[in-house]
Each structure stands twice: as C-alpha cells, then as structure tokens.
C-alpha cells in the first residue's frame, strides 16, 4: 500500500490574528486507492484543511506550519506556478455547489476539455473524443457536450464537475461535500460513481463531509475534527462502532438511525472545560 499524501502538523490561522488556530496541528495520511473522510461540524476546519493542501486558502488566511507531502514532494514549499502544474493534473477537486462551480456561459464540453488542453496539450479530434469518453464515464450522454450548465439537472452538473476533476486521471481526488446539495437518490448515484472511479483509476480520495451516513458508506479511514483539531482518527469500523473520544461518541448519538430504535441524544460537551463549552 503506497502512501500518497502525508500531512504533518498543518496549522492555518487568519493573517490578522495569528493566535487563532483555525486548523491546529493536523496530521494524517492517505494511501492510493483508499478513501479518507474528514468529518466535522461547520467551523471545525475540515474544508480549510482541504483547501490548504491545494494552496487555495483565501488571502486573509495563512498556513503557518506544517508539511503536505504528496508523492514525496512537499506542496507547502512550492510556489504558485509549480502548484498549478499539480492542481487539476495530479490532484482533482470537486466542490459542494455544482451550480456555482461551473461557468454558466461556457458549454460543458469546453469546460471539461480545458484542463486536458492545458495540462496534456490535447486538441482537435483527440480532445473531442476524450471529452466524449469522460462524459460517458460519468453517465452523461456524449451528445450533451454542447449543453450549457443551466440545461442540466443538479446531479448532471455534479457529474460534469466529476468529469472535469478526473479528466487528467489524477492520483488524488479531493471532494468537499460533493453531495450535500443533492437529493438522496442522486447522492447515492454520485457516491457510487465516485467509488467506481476511485477503483478504476486507483485514486486516493479525500472526502469532506458532515454526514456520518456517507462516511459509513464510502470511507476506509475517518478523521474527526472539532474546533480545528483532530480529536480521533482511524479505520471506519473502529471510529463508528468503537469511538474512543467523547466528542465522537456525542456526535454519533445525535445522528438519527433509520430503524428509529436509537434514542436521539442532545450533544454532550461535559468532557470540555467549563469555559470552552458552547452556550
């Protein structure tokens, strides 16, 4: 099992307030062909962790510490130009909102082809047939290549996003809540598609979510974040069925089950110091 990504001591703070640790000393690793889920509530730092791997933090934020070793190379030490060679080519990315992540005035075929042209220099018939092939892989009829994003449903748009992100057959895919805005049946289809692609392309997948159900379905390993820190990490069975940290236990107790057998519990912060507990 080859190690694809190794994050060590990643720390992110606002530029204006370097004492405020939004991501605090985060370390974990991801192997090729495996899925790691980062799970947490809003504000836990799960999206910032993903963005800082790619060097996509906004200007108000900075990475103060840590190394991001991807295929033996420290991404944190690269400049923007070098990062651009890796983004889209070796690391694909999918975001939550398929409506806002696509350009509304460009045909989807063009948008999928863009990274192929930039990174692999494809053009003409070769580009055209690769785009058609990608659309087919994500379950959209290749005739849709001339459609605009507004002519597609939410699920189809997310499929287009996936086609864009895997166009160059990246070694790693970062998916930030890719199914949160979708209906439950569409979500199930998209999760299945991502899982198939992960197998076929032997990608490592870093999957950000707040939904423990999704975690249970797709994760090999789980990282649980709370207020910028990892409180627990490990194989999915262990974290879900034998959680060690009181926060993980409290959070799992809030998730309604489908049989309606489990009583819902309000979240328990008694393990925190009194001054740290939320109101």
């Amino acid at each position, binding site marked *: 099992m080859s190690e694809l990504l190794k994050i060590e001591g990643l720390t992110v703070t606002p530029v204006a307030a370097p004492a405020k640790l939004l991501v605090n000393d985060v370390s974990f690793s991801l192997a090729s062909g495996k899925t790691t889920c980062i799970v947490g509530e809003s504000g836990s730092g799960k999206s910032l962790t993903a963005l800082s791997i790619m060097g996509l933090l906004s200007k108000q934020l900075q990475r103060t510490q840590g190394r991001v070793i991807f295929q033996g190379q420290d991404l944190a030490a690269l400049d923007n130009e070098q990062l651009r060679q890796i983004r889209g080519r070796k690391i694909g990315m999918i975001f939550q909102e398929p409506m806002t992540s696509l350009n509304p005035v460009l045909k989807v075929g063009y948008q999928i082809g863009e990274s192929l042209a930039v990174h692999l220099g494809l053009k003409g018939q070769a580009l055209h047939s690769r785009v058609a092939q990608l659309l087919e892989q994500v379950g959209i009829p290749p005739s849709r290549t001339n459609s605009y994003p507004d002519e597609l449903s939410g699920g189809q748009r997310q499929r287009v996003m996936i086609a864009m992100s895997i166009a160059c057959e990246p070694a790693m895919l970062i998916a930030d809540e890719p199914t949160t805005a979708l209906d439950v049946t569409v979500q199930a289809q998209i999760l299945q598609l991502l899982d198939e692609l992960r197998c076929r392309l032997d990608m490592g997948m870093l999957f950000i979510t*707040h939904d423990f159900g999704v975690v249970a379905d797709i994760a090999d390993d789980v990282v649980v974040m709370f207020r910028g820190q990892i409180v627990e990490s490990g194989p999915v069975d262990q974290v879900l069925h034998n959680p060690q940290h009181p926060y993980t236990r409290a959070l799992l107790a809030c998730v309604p*089950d489908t049989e309606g057998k489990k009583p819902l519990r*309000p979240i328990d912060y008694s393990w925190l110091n009194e001054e740290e507990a939320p109101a």
Partner: protein
Amino acid sequence: MSDIILSARHLHKTYRQRSGRFGFGNTIIKALDDVSIDLRAGSTLAVVGESGSGKSTLARCLLQLQPLDSGEILFQGRDLAKMSAKALRHERRHLQMIFQDPFASLNPRMKVGEIVGEGLLIHRLGSLEQQRAKVVSMLKRVGLEESDMQKYPHEFSGGQRQRIGIARALVLEPKVVVCDEPVSALDVSIQAQILLLLKELQQEMSLSYIFISHDLRVVRHIADEVAVMHNGRLIEQGRVGEVYAAPREQYTQNLLKSIPGRKHAAVQHV
C-alpha cells in the same frame, strides 16, 4: 372520527413555468396533483420527497399562504380555502409555520422580543404586560433568555435563530404547526437539540405537526405517519414504521435504499 384536526381533500395546484431557451416556451407544472392528507390531533405527519416533488407547495397551500387551484382544506370542520381574508387571518393564530432558513426568515431590523411578540400584538391577545410575560416565558422555554429580547437576529447562531423561529410560531399557542425543513440547515448536533425540543413542545402544548423534510432519517425519528410525494402526487402514506419496514411503491423503496449509512446501518447505540 373527530380526532382529525386538519384534513386536505383533492388539492390541485399548477404553475406555469417559462421554458426553452430565453424562456419563450411555457410548461405547465403540476405541483399538487389530487393530494389528500389527514393530520391527527397531537401527532406528526411527515411529508417527504425530493426537490420538485411539491412538498413545500403543499406546506404553503395548507396554510393558504398560496392559493389553490381547487380542493378543500378542513380545519376544525371549516374550509380554509373558502374563507374570507379576514376570517382566515383570525384562524392563522391556530396555524403556524416554522421555516427552513433561520437566516432568511427573521426580520433583521426587528429585535427578538418584537419578532416573537408580533403575533400576540396582531391578534390582540392580552394586555401589553401579559404579552411581554408570554414572550419571556416562551423564549425561556426554547432555551433563550429574557435579555435576548433586546438583541437582533444577527447576534445569534443558526440553532439559536431556529429557536427564535420556534418561539415566534408557538407563542400564539397554535393547534397545527407546519415545519418546512426546520433542521436541514443545521449541524447534526444542533439538529438533534431542535428535534428533541420540537418533540417536548408537542407533548406540552398538544401540537399537531406537518413536518416537511427530505431527510428520511430525521423523519423516521420525529414522525408518526409519513406521506411520500413524487412529481406532485402523493404516492404512498402510512404509519412510519410500516412504510419504512415494507414500502409498497418502487419509488419509496428506492428512496429508502438511498439513505446513506445502510452499509453500517447499526451505527452504535451509545
């Protein structure tokens, strides 16, 4: 049987939507296609469906926030759809709504005390002192404080705002409350708190809920009965345990199969 508090019969509602490039075409969309439901007093009826299924239209039509094309809505034996605006306004006290987005549904320029007290003022329920006392006790009941009356909505978190929305709806001591996706914008920890609060308040105030949701796990937890909508039609309804255990319709089966977490369905019982 008179334990049915709200009964909708043969509701129809169509929208005309512009279609085609540049919107020159017209498409008729059947948002409600012969929908009938019964809500039992003191119980929770969940309406589930995917986006575009018509569940939010149903919520709005039930409270007559939107006119129907045809159909009748019987509340305590009288048809809301045929009432005059004035009579309807009077009935609204008993029919309240809790909205999905706690960021959009509270007037940012009003203080919390005004937001929660407005209904009492409009319906002229009690003296000003009595109204104030009611607002204070309602806020306390939903987990807020008296001092919060002087604050504005932006000073609160999402979960707290949803508590304000609940206080606003319940201070009038309504009989029927339509909850339109009340927890879908909230984190799972906050979601659990709000669901538990809604259940407690239902007991204390003998409320009947119509609970609109796309989240089948939440519905399993809160509802007594469930109605499944698809393309404007009500395709299946029944006791929640029975529908989940043995769905008759193919569509319901697919919906239930798509709930994430089935692989590890027995997520531990802490």
